[in-house]
């Protein structure tokens, strides 16, 4: 049956997101907060995250491009970014944020710039994976 196949697909995608370290337990917390009264909670939070983090990325880019670099401001933005990514269980993204902040604390501009590329990369990868995953979840739930 199509439905079983979809459900299996969802399960396997989900498992691999965790196994490969893209998501951590916090994502499970989000899933547990989803129910009939809030059937789209996970999607809503993920959407909020991507809207919010896109804004932060732009701010960070700008801060990295200005001279002299304001490391305080950078750290502030990254603190927010890290907080949000941690709140949705985005494990790899959060780890890259931590690495960035270390370069920031050391006022290492080069390090920050390189590290930020990693942050953006992980951010984009996860976004794609979550889009596909959540779409599959939706399809599976509609195929009753």
């Amino acid at each position, binding site marked *: 049956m199509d439905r079983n196949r979809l459900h299996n697909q969802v399960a396997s995608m989900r498992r691999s997101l965790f196994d490969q370290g893209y998501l951590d337990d916090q994502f499970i917390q989000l899933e547990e907060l989803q129910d009939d009264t809030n059937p789209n909670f996970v999607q809503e939070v993920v959407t909020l995250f991507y809207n919010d983090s896109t804004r932060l990325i732009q701010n960070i880019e700008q801060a990295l491009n200005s001279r002299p670099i304001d490391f305080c401001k950078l750290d502030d933005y990254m603190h927010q970014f890290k907080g949000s990514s941690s709140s949705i*269980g985005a494990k790899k993204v959060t780890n890259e944020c931590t690495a960035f902040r270390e370069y920031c604390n050391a006022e290492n501009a080069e390090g920050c710039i390189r590290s930020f590329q990693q942050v953006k990369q992980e951010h984009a990868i996860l976004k794609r994976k979550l889009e596909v995953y959540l779409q599959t979840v939706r399809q599976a739930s509609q195929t009753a």
Partner: protein
Amino acid sequence: MGNMATQTEFHVLAVDDSLIDRKLIERLLKTSSYQVTAVDSGSKALEFLGLNGENEDEERNSSVESVSAADEDHQVGVNLIITDYCMPGMTGYDLLRKIKQSSSFKDIPVVIMSSENIPSRINRCLEDGAEEFFLKPVKLSDVNKLRPHLMKGITTKNEMQSNTNKRKGSEEIQSPDRTRPRYNELEVV
């Protein structure tokens, strides 16, 4: 009627400058059947409480537009405040201090959340009156720890009422200066 013996609905004021964290905490609290008001800054929190930031004792709050929680009874509107520590402007710690310095609100339990595990920060908050300190991201198991603090507030205030059948909504329960609702012919004092 239908609302007999329902527990008082607790009202939690959540303060966090992060949109995502506000959404999360709101959902966590609502899942636990709390009424929630979420604001994005300490100053908005104070405004909601009816404190204008100078620790004015807004006892009956008659002068305020009454949009705030301090409507019926200054101690009823909000049963617990949960706030992020790191916020621009007024930190969660600043907010804690202001609450504790207010004669109207000092008894409201305050819980602090932070993404950073800094023992000196945690200790300072607890020493200055915070009931709990949660590390972010906050989980359901953390929110479950709030209930005893909320229950404590209820029993000290109105022991009788928590045990009687309630015919009216929760707003009227703790308003000693309003018309006293009658519960089964008992007049609550």
